[in-house]
């Protein structure tokens, strides 16, 4: 039996009528038509579906939609400010942190979550933070370079 669900997505209060077994991922893509969040394995292994739930990166394919009721979700659609990319998006573009792009929304949300977590942004910590995001194109080096650059640009912004 479908039930009403209310979540704040990218700052906007949204409602959907979904079955109890619906995942947050299916709700975002099929009900709210936010298809920037990708479905890869649908088993929590690949990280393509990563969004921020109440500020923390999660695999949206593993979240029961109704568990996110009254929560706040940030998807890839919520990062850019108009035509101005989010600094992490900009860093991925400038440093070649993507090729086919399928894993990119997840990698970028994991990065944003990591930068907001207060963990020291060492290269080692970056790699651990992105360990749950699979990418079959880049070999990860360019991704890590992009995140390091995003850290540097954030540092310059605060000086």
């Amino acid at each position: 039996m479908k039930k009403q669900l209310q979540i704040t997505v990218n700052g906007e209060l949204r409602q959907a009528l979904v079955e109890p077994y619906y995942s947050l991922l299916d709700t975002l893509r099929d009900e709210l038509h936010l298809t920037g969040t990708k479905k890869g394995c649908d088993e929590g292994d690949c990280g393509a579906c990563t969004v921020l739930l109440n500020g923390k990166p999660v695999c949206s394919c593993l979240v029961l939609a109704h568990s996110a009721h009254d929560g706040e979700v940030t998807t890839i659609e919520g990062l850019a400010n108009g035509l101005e990319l989010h600094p992490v998006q900009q860093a991925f573009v400038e440093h070649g942190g993507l090729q086919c792009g399928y894993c990119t929304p997840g990698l970028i949300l994991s990065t944003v979550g990591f930068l907001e977590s207060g963990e020291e942004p060492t290269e080692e910590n970056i790699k651990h933070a992105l360990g749950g995001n699979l990418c079959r194109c880049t070999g990860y080096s360019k991704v890590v370079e992009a995140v390091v650059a995003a850290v540097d640009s954030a540092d310059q912004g605060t000086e």
Partner: protein
Amino acid sequence: MRQAISMLQRYGENARIVAGSTDFLVRWRAGVWNPDHVINIQRVAGLGRITYSSRNGLRIGALVTVRTLEQHPIVRRRYPALAMAAASFAGVQVRNLATVGGNICNASPSGDTIPALLVFGAECRIAGPDGDRWVALDQFFTGPGQTVLRNGELLAEIRVPPPPPNTGSHYIKHSPRGAMDIATVGVASLVSLDGRRGPCSEALIALAAVAPTPVRAYSAEDILRGQGLNQELFQAAADLARDGVKPIDDIRGSAEHRKEIVGVLTRRTLEQALNSAATGPMTFEEQRRLTVQAAF
């Protein structure tokens, strides 16, 4: 909580509890688990807290996430093997959802947090229709996916006593990948010394993914207690741990391979635990480098 218990009583075997849903949703979608009733305890009050006192030790609410465990400063300082087990668990996005209670109640032989909780002597507070009862974690599992939980009961809290002074602990997870994989073998060891250089006053070793449930290596522990610890003794303990398990062949490794790895990791975790007991804990980052040992 009372409502959750009465629902569990009402629906009995046809109900399944869900919290972080990381294991549940995948199996539900695949039709592996098909309960008539799903009881979501995510918002049950009071189960999401983690507290520490030097007298009572660590109290971990069943809904505390694995990520919280990993990042908790006292867990990192006093229960390093537990922080390591949490850090080796899936990826950040899963750790932010998965709960400690869920990892225990799924009762997987390879559950990452379980060996570390076992060596720290964890106890489970089980809430039920007749109030609470306590069960030692090493008595909690009855088979793969099977626990002592009865109809109407749920795991509410895990209590972990404060480790004695001069205690070191370590967890090593051997798996095909460095992240996002299940343990081929997981070993946690804890060593307490009588004084910094003294003989071993306590030794506990727990093994994952080598039996129908996570298990302690009692015979290996026994030869260490009361002894001055050295390489020969560690090797003897490692051999006992290796010879005491009867693992299965599966996609992650053969039984023979697993037995050998049990020996190797028992020795390495004991060495590391002794080192920390004698000289103090390593930093989280240093220890993490030694925790996930991915290799074929």
